[in-house]
């Protein structure tokens, strides 16, 4: 089959690899009909995620048709149309029982390695480094799905792929980030980053009852999508100072909750960007927490900072005094996707949201390397690419 493989920084290659096989009784093989490039895939592309190995098949947002099931999978049959969540979860462990699926204790075969890095190991993820299991991902014609009796959700109505594909990651990720803000009537939510996760965080904040959402980015097309599709007020940080503007917009109090939908490769103008770039280059910190610092300082007293952006290792100069003295709550985590599949599919069915609005580019799997390059450089107003195998 064809698969998009990582071969180093800025080096993706679509190549012929062996077809996947059932390796365990609870596995399924899915023939992929649509697969997307995630903003977090750009961290792999830029070489910021440790323990990637040449030849790793990437991709963790995919859906398709069940081709084969192992003897332990009773809820799926050949021909079922499914969306596959990006965390791999057993459904049997302490964390899965509490619906904290991205913390599954049994799905990371390299748990020992993750323990050396982070103290304890989270769940294994598709196509996202050997620290997180070294699983082959879904930017391919076929994928092996472990614990297929727990993860995939059947799609039984006439939705297009693009309407349901993002249940695999970015819609639940934006939703969980908004849910973590514990939104009450009258709340103002600020969202850093208007990429696809930011867009879903904005829409989810409104779905959950926010009165105002303020979106922060620098790309006009992303800010336009935030205001036109998602009804947010917008701030272009290249034109105005974010902190005083947020203070003005909220009568000096600050947003009730702040969502960081940017993560480890944040950008900003000025000195703090140069500082973090330099420290990152010297390997003195692994991530650039520029959006996170701003979100913390901007948040109102007693508010919540919800982090959906991906961080990998160590960050520097985090204003913890601001967090402690002002009673802030920090909420974060890889998305417990399985928890949100049913309720969010219901919202799509009820017409409360049509996730296909984020798609700006449709390309073939063969064009994956060009698609990464375009997405990274935000060429052609690229916000979200869907690849067709």
């Amino acid at each position: 089959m064809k698969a998009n493989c990582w071969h180093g920084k800025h080096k993706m290659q679509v190549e012929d690899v062996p077809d996947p096989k059932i390796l365990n009784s609870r596995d399924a093989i899915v023939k992929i009909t649509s697969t997307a490039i995630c903003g977090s895939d750009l961290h792999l592309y830029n070489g910021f995620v440790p323990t990637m190995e040449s030849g790793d098949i990437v991709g963790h947002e995919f859906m398709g048709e069940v081709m084969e099931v192992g003897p332990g999978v009773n809820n799926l049959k050949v021909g079922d149309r499914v969306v596959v969540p990006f965390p791999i979860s057993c459904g049997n462990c302490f964390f899965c029982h509490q619906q904290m699926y991205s913390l599954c204790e049994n799905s990371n075969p390299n748990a020992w390695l993750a323990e050396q890095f982070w103290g304890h190991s989270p769940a294994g993820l598709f196509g996202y480094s050997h620290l997180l299991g070294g699983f082959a991902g879904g930017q391919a014609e076929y994928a092996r799905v472990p614990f297929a009796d727990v993860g995939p959700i059947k799609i039984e109505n006439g939705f297009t792929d693009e309407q349901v594909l993002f249940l695999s990651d970015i819609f639940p990720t934006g939703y969980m980030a908004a849910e973590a803000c514990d939104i009450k009537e009258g709340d103002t939510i600020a969202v850093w980053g208007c990429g696809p996760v930011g867009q879903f965080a904005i829409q989810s904040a409104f779905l959950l009852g926010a009165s105002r959402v303020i979106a922060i980015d620098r790309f006009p097309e992303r800010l336009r999508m935030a205001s036109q599709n998602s009804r947010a007020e917008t701030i272009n940080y290249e034109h105005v100072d974010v902190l005083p503007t947020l203070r003005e917009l909220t009568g000096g109090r600050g947003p009730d909750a702040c969502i960081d939908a940017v993560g480890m490769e944040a950008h900003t103008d000025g000195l703090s960007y140069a500082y973090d770039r330099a420290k990152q280059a010297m390997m003195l910190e692994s991530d650039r927490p520029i959006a996170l610092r701003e979100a913390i300082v901007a948040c109102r007293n007693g508010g919540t900072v919800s982090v959906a952006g991906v961080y990998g290792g160590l960050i520097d100069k985090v204003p913890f005094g601001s967090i402690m003295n002002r009673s802030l709550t920090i909420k974060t985590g890889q998305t417990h996707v399985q928890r949100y599949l049913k309720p969010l599919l219901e919202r799509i069915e009820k017409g409360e949201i049509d996730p296909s609005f984020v798609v700006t580019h449709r390309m073939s799997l063969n064009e994956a390397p060009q698609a990464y390059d375009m997405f990274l450089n935000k060429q052609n107003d690229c916000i979200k690419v869907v690849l067709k195998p």
Partner: protein
Amino acid sequence: MGTMSGIEDRISNYAETSNRGGEPIFRFEDGAARVARGLGWFSIGLGLAELISPALIGRITGARNHRGLIRAYGVREIAAGVGILSGKQTATWLWGRVAGDAMDLASLGSVMQSSGERSRKATLGAVAVAGVTALDIWCASQLSSRDLGSSEYNSHAEASMIVNRSPAECYSTWRNFESLPRFMSYIQSVRATGDRTWHWVGRTAEGGPRVEWDAELTEDNPNQRIAWRTLPGSDFRQSGSVEFEAAPGGRGTIVRASMDYAATGVALAAAAATLLGKHPEQMIRKQLRRFKQAVETGEVITTEGQSAGRRNSVTWLDRIAR
């Protein structure tokens, strides 16, 4: 079996005997020691080069796009060099260098799979590393036989793992010894030879030494504790126990394993060391995790045999981690 402090005892005995002559233990300036010092300085030099100009090293070895990794390897080299030159546990640091060499070779191996000039450079680099590796192994084994006495192998290890099942379920899975090879990667087969005795065969690398032992149950307390020890005539002596303690609040079972191993004779000690690795505690923890997976999910999660854009479904990193 009281081997808990075996290694420490022998180290202190050795120190006493060698100090009796007024000679500190590391002061033997023969061939191996001189080579060790040379390797120590070589390590520091290479490490500094990797740390300061990873781009140059990357060009020389064809691994251009791995500057971060090369810097990390540089730190590793310097640590090993300083360790070797410190004169304490020289052999251990040298074995560390051997492990580092293996990492280098694995990394170069992955570059060799690319095409053209990069592959040629990586091949040359791998030949050079292999030469140094041979020296490291010779030197380390020379010094190990002195430092620790490789005709004896002793280890004690403990680990625990919380399992989301009742003590009764955990006990019955473990007590079914014949099924352990299904999920314990270091056991090839288990066969009952009597009411309370079993014959065990260890799973070692292909072509490696074969390790077998007979063990008898010394305690079988249903749902609470199992203990065993090897019978005379086994390749090595082992005693172990596993306890099943109900976790508070009905949160399953804390499974605690405790094992002591000992082997006498150069060949058998080497075989035991191969089977259990340098860090038996980590090995036991990894086995307990596999036990947990089997009990909780009915299978052991794996990527062995999956698709990949390279020859092997798993990489050197996966093999270290599992």
